[in-house]
């Protein structure tokens, strides 16, 4: 499998604090990867760098077949080139309906003029309805998303990401605040998504990571501590010391 994203030698510090320290990371197309690490390990900063929210002090972030550098691109350009991101706290547009949220996320040209003259075709409406079914929100299409439960909002956000149809999906703690049944559904959605794209899941919950059944990267103090199967990394002495043993 060819490499989709390559992060190499990236460092970033905030007021002297090194949040990311010479971090290198690779992910292939259609790969599912879990990233774990204790609080402050740099998981969110890592995602901020890939999505263009934070510019690193040094290092390279190379993406896609044409090996473009993401460092010179704006957040919206990076998103348009196929990097989708789900935030830790569910962020949907609460004043708008589930339908409008999904329609906004649907993969289309993003320029102001094409958006101004956009009219949803029948197949766009169908796509939205299909997505709503996939995330279990068919019955709530016309409800304001602000009314949804925490778990439903998480799903709506996942649905919006699927609507964007990204090649690389970054998911920050998708299972936070979900019931066990909802977690199971979320695992299914993520594994399904990883069949057609690369998915990076940042998660605290070991049980959830185990169910994803994929390669795991352990972050600690801004760099990679260990990488491999979950069983492999949980046997690593250093990992046990800094993370699991606590």
């Amino acid at each position, binding site marked *: 499998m060819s490499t989709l994203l390559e992060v190499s030698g990236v460092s970033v510090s905030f007021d002297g604090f090194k949040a990311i320290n010479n971090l290198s990371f690779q992910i292939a197309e259609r790969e599912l990867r879990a990233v774990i690490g204790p609080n402050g390990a740099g998981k969110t900063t890592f995602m901020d760098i890939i*999505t263009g*929210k934070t510019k690193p002090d040094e290092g390279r972030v190379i993406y896609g077949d044409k090996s473009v550098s993401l460092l010179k691109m*704006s*957040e*919206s*350009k990076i*998103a*348009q080139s196929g990097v*989708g*991101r789900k*935030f830790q706290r569910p*962020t949907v*547009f*609460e*004043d*708008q309906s589930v*339908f*409008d949220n999904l*329609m*906004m*996320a649907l993969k289309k040209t*993003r*320029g*102001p*003029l094409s*958006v*101004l003259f*956009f*009219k*949803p075709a029948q197949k766009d*409406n*169908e796509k939205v*309805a*299909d997505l*709503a*079914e996939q995330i279990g929100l*068919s*019955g709530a*299409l*016309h409800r*304001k998303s*602000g*009314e949804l439960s925490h778990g439903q909002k998480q799903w709506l956000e996942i649905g*919006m990401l699927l609507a*964007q149809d990204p090649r690389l999906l970054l998911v920050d703690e998708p299972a936070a605040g979900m019931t066990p049944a909802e977690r199971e559904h979320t695992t299914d959605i993520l594994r399904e998504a990883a069949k057609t794209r690369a998915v990076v899941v940042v998660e605290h919950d070991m049980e959830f990571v185990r169910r994803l059944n994929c390669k795991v990267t352990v972050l600690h103090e801004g760099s990679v501590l260990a990488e491999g199967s979950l069983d492999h990394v949980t046997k690593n002495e250093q990992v046990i010391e800094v993370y699991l043993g606590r």
Partner: protein
Amino acid sequence: MTDAALPRRQPFALRFPSVMIFLAILALFTVGVTVLSEGFGMGVISTSFIKTLGKTLCLCLVALAMDLVWGYCGILSLGHMAFFGLGGYAIGMWLMYARTEIIVLESLSAAALPPTPQEVSDGIATQIFGVVGSSEFPPIWAFAYSLPLQLAAVVLVPGVLALIFGWLAFRSRVTGVYLSILTQAMTLALSLHLFQNDSGLRGNNGLSGLQNLPGLGETPQSIVSLWFFWASALALALGYLLCAWIVSGKFGSVIRAIRDDEARVRFLGYPVEAFKLVIFTLTAVIAGIAGALYYPQAGIVNPAEIAPIASIYLAVWVAIGGRGRLYGAVIGAAFVSLVSTWFTGGQAPDINLGFYTISWVDWWTVLLGLSFVGVTLFAPKGIGGLVDVLIDRKSPNRHGADLGPDHGALREQEADK
């Protein structure tokens, strides 16, 4: 997949009944005022009050623009009255030039030799710029002779200024309070510039006599005032339709999303800055058109009209009417400006407290300030919220949480369930 879950694509009028209701009320109002006007015989409404009503319609139009940029896109611009004033100046230049030209030609026609173009031009310049001690046309008057070119300037000058200002401000990611301050600085700088005699626009005298249309000296003001009243009503109707169309579609969805959480919109791949720039520029153009219709009815435009306070008033109107709904902005602008006319026109009876007499001419701004604070604290939906009471629309119960993390995000009480 069930078809029932899909929204049925109804005609625009049915999906947005408020638009049709608004247009019907506006049409009725226009016809009613026309019938009762002096110009058409009944004479119940005086010509000066027709002008007040026509001006009010223009203020409603600029309030609509303000609602689009602030209520829908979350950009609290405190500089939109600058664009309004520029629209007035642009049309005022032609009005003044063309009328002065007629006067000068008349006076020169008595001479034995026909006047040369240079003599005519000098005569006009002396007439217009005598008050600021000049007798030459400044370069910015180069197109004042041409109505089409000055009409183009009504749209282009505010549009280009907004485009440049917006491009600089938005690309540096200036938001919230800082953007508001920046827009205040823009309008202040502009008005200070125009106050100077050598600004080329007659300093603090401004442009005057704009109520007299060139070549229509015979037509009484009672008729001219109606023409402008109709034009203002038409502009408001078209402006309302345009705004309603913009906010009803996906574009509206995106700008409301920018208002509530712009960082998230970026991660969806939308170029947030470009959307803001489009809205900022478009609303500046609407403001310019509103100003071009307003000042011929007011008769005079001067730099005081562009003072920072004017733009703050605009925000107050929209807040009192209820932001984030188009009819709210119109109601707010109409209500506050008409009440303001009543209070400051000396018609409101003074209140004698025995030891002190409350004179409304002085105390009106205090009352306005208090009602602004009151609305913000106790009735965030503004006057438009009364409609919600009528049709039983409720706010969601979010335990005080706003609808997004951004400064401009809707507050719990402002939202619909």
